[in-house]
């Protein structure tokens, strides 16, 4: 391995990258800071004092748990749907050649390339036309639609890197279509699906706009936050929730990183 031909980065690049990262993170540190402020009605800087009580307060607020529960359920189901649809699509696109392939790759990207508000109000007015009442499933419908693409992209990229002859090799060795899927395809695209699934979960978990239009009266975590931020009861509670979400997701993100990185190395080793 000699990817490291350039040993040192130019100083200017380091500074620019550092400033960029700082720009990305200072506001997040601020969010963390205000999870500890003693001031509950409005924020003032610097915070008048620090306290841990908001963690307990948050823990004891049933509305937080309700919203969190709904968000987790919505994101999980959306991710499962996106994984299924995205993988099917990726398999069709990369394993076969047919008229309209290009159109399909465009179709998959459309829901994320069009602003969320369009997805939102299209679905909402379609629900109205079809007289479908808002429910858990209307939210999932909206979320899964724009999550498909992240799974699809990851899977297509992995399929592309996966040597085409692997599938033939498996069949050659006596495995039929299903056995090949189970023993060769799945293990090889697994980490890509994991990464895609995580991104899909993240997108769904944090989606405000599409949810606003497809949730009716249900509150997912972001909708709860919107309400809470606009009409604050105990402001730091939102910060506690945001902070906990970041910390809780830290490990899975790291895990996904190492998993997909290894996957790339394996499939890239063909020389």
């Amino acid at each position, binding site marked *: 391995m000699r990817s490291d031909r350039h040993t040192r980065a130019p100083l200017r690049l380091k500074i620019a990258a550092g400033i960029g990262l700082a720009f990305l993170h200072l506001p997040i540190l601020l969010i963390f800071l205000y999870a500890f402020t003693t001031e509950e*009605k*409005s924020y003032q800087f610097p915070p008048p004092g620090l306290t841990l009580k908001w963690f307990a307060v948050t823990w004891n607020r049933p509305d937080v748990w309700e919203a969190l529960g709904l968000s987790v359920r919505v994101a999980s189901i959306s991710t499962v749907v996106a994984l299924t649809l995205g993988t099917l699509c990726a398999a069709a696109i990369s394993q076969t050649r047919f008229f309209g392939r290009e159109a399909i790759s465009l179709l998959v990207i459309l829901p994320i390339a069009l602003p969320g508000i369009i997805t939102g109000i299209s679905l909402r007015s379609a629900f*109205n036309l079809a007289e479908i*009442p*808002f429910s858990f499933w209307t939210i999932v419908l909206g979320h899964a639609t724009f999550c498909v693409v992240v799974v699809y992209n990851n899977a297509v990229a992995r399929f592309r890197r996966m040597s085409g002859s692997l599938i033939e090799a498996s069949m050659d060795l006596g495995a039929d279509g299903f056995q090949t899927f189970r023993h060769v395809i799945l293990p090889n695209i697994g980490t890509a699906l994991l990464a895609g699934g995580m991104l899909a979960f993240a997108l769904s978990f944090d989606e405000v706009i599409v949810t606003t239009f497809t949730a*009716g*009266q249900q509150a997912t975590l972001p909708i709860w936050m919107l309400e809470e931020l*606009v*009409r*604050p*009861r105990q402001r730091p509670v939102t910060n506690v929730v945001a902070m906990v979400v970041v910390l809780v997701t830290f490990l899975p993100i790291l895990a996904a990183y190492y998993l997909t990185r290894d996957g790339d190395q394996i499939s890239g080793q063909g020389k």
Partner: protein
Amino acid sequence: EMMTEVGPGEGQVNIVAWAGYIERGETDKAFDWVTKFEEATGCKVNVKTANTSDEMVALMNEGGFDLVTASGDASLRLIAGKRVQPINVDLIPSWSTVDDRLKDAPWHTVDGVHYGTPYMWGPNVLMYNTETFKEAPTSWNVVFEEMDLPDGKTNKGRVQAYDGPIHIADAAQYLMFHKPELGIKSPYELNEDQYKAALDLLRVQRTLVGRYWHDAFIQIDDFKNEGVVASGSWPFQVNLLKADKAPVASTIPQEGATGWADTTMMHVDAANPNCAYLWMEHSLASNLQSDLSVWFGANPSVPAACTDGRGMQTAEGCTANGLDDFDRIRFWTTPVSKCESQGECVPYYRWVSDYIGVIGGR
């Protein structure tokens, strides 16, 4: 299709309401007029907050709600659009206690049929920062015309206005006082010239306003953090800011004030009609009217609420909130083209698009 009897509750009722209208003690434990209702009737109350009358109409048009606390500029539209159903006042025992001035008010009574129960009414006040204004401003000009405020600094960027087309009426009312030659009879009935004058005034206002207020809570925030010192507002914001010890007060300047008189109306396709009727009765019969008028700083539709001790309100409080100013307030109502005062007026849909234009700088 008016209901003839109230059956057992369905378990829930969905209400579109103004911010601060339906409290269950979450912001302040003392103000809770929901919990007891839920316990007594088994009807869980779900509230969707709306910020403008237009939002309310849109939500009701879309459906999924049982009740709405509609102001006069929304109620007639809802009735005309057949979004709300006639109310059988016989099923609401406390109907008789309603303020006589409101019982047959034209914004909820059409051809003698009632489309709701009155909820609350009040003025749109001028809220101001008491550190900037040592004395209450006497004219709305502080938010309409560029000037130096008593603290010696310009009002540019330090005042706000309501982000709803109905604010055109505030401008018209201001002109009624200052430009009588325009001949405005009602701020909701404007001919082309009068309308144009109002828009011109609002265009001047646009240069003074940094950000329009759309949400009561965001306005509160702007008064705290963005250096806003004067704006048309609701007593509700004044109350909350005062509770936070912010230096604000409110007044009704010499030009008078527009205001609102809201009605609890029921959706034609209400899924929970029984709970809806139970709520309407509750809204008139319980501590609600009294506590609400304290909480929001406005006037109950049941005058007895000021005095009968069911809630926190007192006779003095009601007077302070303007219970006796009913005739001075010009209540929100939907502008229509066939208007009473001068035959041909600019209809509301133009108010909507033109106000968007004004905010956008046109």
